[in-house]
């Protein structure tokens, strides 16, 4: 049995955990760790009858994820205290936002850097306020620094000198040089306040951002986790609002991200068993490449299709910048090796 298949099936509740033998668990645990989703699986199977060693490991993971989440939200609070006196409002993105909003995908989800979104007109003041509050530039070379400032959708990463935590300050959700330009002003002006008091994207924008991050920007590293986020949030948003899928479609069109959002929905259906409404529930032969990339892990947690991985890496760059610029960028990067 393929461990990555078993892992996906367990998340989708298509497989009985009681039917797994110890060697299967070993592969599933290895794959889940490689995808940084072991605590997600542990939460998904919190009530299942598991072998004692697995149950103990999963309990550790759930507890550790809870601590990590509290620390991530504390980091969001630190950012608020640094930016509020300057009158800069921000919107939480990704993991911290899911945690602040108490969403299902937050259970056990690993949260790396703190990602926030501010108005483009506030970005320099935000940087200054953070520098004054103890964040500093991660030492990087001048080319990278210039590259971030001229072409990216975020500041060069800042790290807090005492707490050793990174913050990514975004002014939009895709690189400036990307073929697609989302409506950043709409993202911020339609943000909503979460139960935790922080601003987060409205449901439709949250799903759009999740799909954009996975399919329009990245090379599908961590794709299973992003897809799990997308699947659980769209499922829960649709359960709370019967008109959700229609609104999502309109919002995706506004940001120019309909193709990515639709593909994310189809992949969530194919891998995690999402139920899609008419108009969404289609077949696209090119999805097969994405499924293959998402499932390209062996039972030891290794990426199995290096050429496919490379192809998706090149694709992510191809989408990110025009060809001449890409050539210049790769040339500079290659010379620095």
């Amino acid at each position, binding site marked *: 049995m393929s461990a990555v298949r078993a892992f996906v099936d367990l998340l989708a509740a298509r497989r009985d955990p009681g039917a797994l033998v*110890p060697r299967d668990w070993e592969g599933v645990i290895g794959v889940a760790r490689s995808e940084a989703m072991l605590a997600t699986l542990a939460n998904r199977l919190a009530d299942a009858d598991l072998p004692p060693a697995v149950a103990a490991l999963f309990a550790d993971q759930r507890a550790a994820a809870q601590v990590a989440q509290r620390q991530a939200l504390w980091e969001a609070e630190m950012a608020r205290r640094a930016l509020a006196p300057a009158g800069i409002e921000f919107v939480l993105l990704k993991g911290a936002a899911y945690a602040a909003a108490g969403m299902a995908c937050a259970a056990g989800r690993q949260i790396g850097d703190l990602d926030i979104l501010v108005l483009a007109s506030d970005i320099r003041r935000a940087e200054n306020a953070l520098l004054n509050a103890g964040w500093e530039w991660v030492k990087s070379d001048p080319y990278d620094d210039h590259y971030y400032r001229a072409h990216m959708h975020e500041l060069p990463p800042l790290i807090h000198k005492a707490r050793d935590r990174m913050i990514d300050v975004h002014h939009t959700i895709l690189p400036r040089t990307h073929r697609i330009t989302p409506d950043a002003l709409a993202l911020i002006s339609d943000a909503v306040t979460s139960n935790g008091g922080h601003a987060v994207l409205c449901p439709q924008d949250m799903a759009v951002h999740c799909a954009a991050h996975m399919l329009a920007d990245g090379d599908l590293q961590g794709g299973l986790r992003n897809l799990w986020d997308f699947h659980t949030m769209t499922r829960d948003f649709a359960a709370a609002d019967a008109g959700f899928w229609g609104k999502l479609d309109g919002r995706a069109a506004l940001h120019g991200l309909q193709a990515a959002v639709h593909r994310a929905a189809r992949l969530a259906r194919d891998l995690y068993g999402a139920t899609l409404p008419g108009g969404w529930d289609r077949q696209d032969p090119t999805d097969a490449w994405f499924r293959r990339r998402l499932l390209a892990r062996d039972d030891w947690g290794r990426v199995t299709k290096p050429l496919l991985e490379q192809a998706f890496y090149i694709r992510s760059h191809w989408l990110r910048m025009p060809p001449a610029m890409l050539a210049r960028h790769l040339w500079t990067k290659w010379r620095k090796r």
Partner: protein
Amino acid sequence: MRHSTRIAVGPVQFRIGSDWAGPVAALERLYAGYPEDDARPADATVRLFAARPWRRWLRPSVHIGGDFVVPDALPLPLSMGLLAAEMGMNLQVALGWRRHMLLHASAVAKDGRALIMSGESGSGKSTLAALLGEGGWRLMGDEFTLIDPAGGDAFAFPRAVSIKNEAIAEVSARVDAARLGPLLAGTPKGDIRHLIPRPDAIAAMHEPARPALLLFPRFGGETTIEPMGEGEAFVRLTEASTNYVALGEAGFAALTRLVRETPAFGISYPDSAAGIALVGQLWADAAT
């Protein structure tokens, strides 16, 4: 992977995969006396691999991978495959284990009470623990000591002890050659030879011990004993713990309790005999 083995050390079940037979055979010899539970899935995965297929034969070099990796870690020559495996296993525990608070410390136990020794590499903590383990003590481990955040007990991680440089001659003179691994000469950490813990230490590896004495040894110089305050011991142990921050409040509570309940000393000693004598003296005081 082509070759693999499973090893349980203390509470951690490892699986180790390798592109070569050598490191797996060496591990299986060192860990032959450890309990095996085939029904137990591994908590942690270590992979020893060649960066390119032809590098399995041509100037073979072992890259260390697994659930957690250190970016840009340098590979080791195949002759040091055992060291690569050890480093891979340590890495998985240091970065992945959450059930206990991890202290980068050696430990030995007597009558259900533990002596914990924390220090940098070269402080002599491994050698002291190994030598005490050949005497009247149970060796708990030379690399990690695990503290249960709920109860405060110390748990053992008795991997094969990594004996280094000058200590190799001293330890090999005292133990049966069958309990020693191959000499790994000229590694990035100097010469290394592994010592298989005594069978009773392996048999007792799941038994907790109550922390009774904390030592911060420093090898070399005059014999000195300096009582250490709770604050200093606390700060030193936060630096010696790989998961103190990740455990959050539970880590703080566990460490606070440890330094409040356990007398701590910094010690210097010129040679092992003096070190062992110092330990005996301080243990006698702590145990009364």
